[in-house]
């Protein structure tokens, strides 16, 4: 154990270790790919796809962790946030993003123009997902989560600026554009995790 001792540093390192396997990024990439894919195939079924992901996705992720993560670095369960506080935080953030979007559309003088709303949709998607990843970065302290948060809002702004507003399809492009670096980062983190953390054979227990 190092002599350079700080309980805060140990806690931060532990919180980062929870995300060391890259599975969360891969899971997020898969979710975004499914939703974007549904957008192209059948937009009416996006809600159903999202509900199925919420119900079964976390279970699948936990099963993967049981096979890959826990045999290597041990079992852990993340500290749960108060659901009320999380929900309030999300509502305030998304509400803020919507107000910002309305403000941007109003400034361009197109509040009654449907095309302006369509154009601004990727901006809302970008800001909303930025909130999620920024929160995650605060928890994990990992720079890659901060990068995804910034990348999300930047791509949202670019799509808002450079699209015409004919359809809502740029939102799907935004999700695909975000899924790609997430998949790359998750794969890189997973490969690194598997290389540096061999499976501990035999029962290591107290």
């Amino acid at each position, binding site marked *: *154990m*190092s002599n350079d*001792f700080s*309980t*805060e540093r*140990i*806690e*931060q*390192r*532990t*919180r980062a*270790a*929870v995300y060391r396997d890259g599975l969360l990024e891969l899971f997020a990439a898969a979710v975004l790919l499914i939703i974007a894919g549904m957008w192209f195939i059948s937009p009416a079924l996006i809600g159903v796809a999202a509900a199925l992901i919420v119900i079964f996705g976390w279970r699948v992720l936990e099963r993967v962790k*049981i096979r890959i993560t*826990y045999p290597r*670095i*041990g*079992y*852990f*369960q*993340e*500290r*749960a946030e108060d659901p009320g506080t999380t929900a309030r935080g999300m509502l305030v953030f998304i509400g803020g993003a919507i107000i910002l979007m309305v403000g941007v559309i109003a400034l361009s003088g197109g509040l009654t123009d449907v095309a302006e709303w369509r154009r601004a949709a990727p901006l809302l998607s970008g800001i909303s997902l930025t909130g999620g990843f920024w929160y995650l970065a605060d928890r994990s302290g990992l720079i890659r989560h901060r990068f995804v948060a910034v990348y999300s809002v930047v791509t949202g702004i670019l799509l808002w600026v450079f699209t015409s507003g004919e359809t809502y399809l740029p939102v799907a492009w935004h999700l695909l554009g975000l899924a790609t670096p997430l998949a790359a980062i998750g794969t890189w983190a997973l490969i690194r995790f598997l290389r540096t953390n061999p499976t*501990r054979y035999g*029962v*290591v*227990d*107290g």
Partner: protein
Amino acid sequence: MAELPPPIEPDRLVHEPGRLAVLAVLNAVEQADFLFLLDQTGLTKGNLSSHTAKLEAAGYVDVEKAFVGKIPRTVYRLTEAGQQALAAYRDHMAGVFDAIG
């Protein structure tokens, strides 16, 4: 000359670096098993066993035998008393460092 107040002793159980590391790791997660604590603290198996036993005896850590998939696991969780002890220790040490300057 005004008399100084008697020095307050830090919680000796928490003051030991190995146990403090265990408490800090458990403070960052909801619960964790022996292997995770081993991985995060860098302690040896024997040391970790001894420290967790002392923390459990003091009521700072809850120990539960559980199954993760089909594998039996001893799962550790910080109790409310453990959280309070860690917070009090941090306050105490912050006070000490403030006094030193």
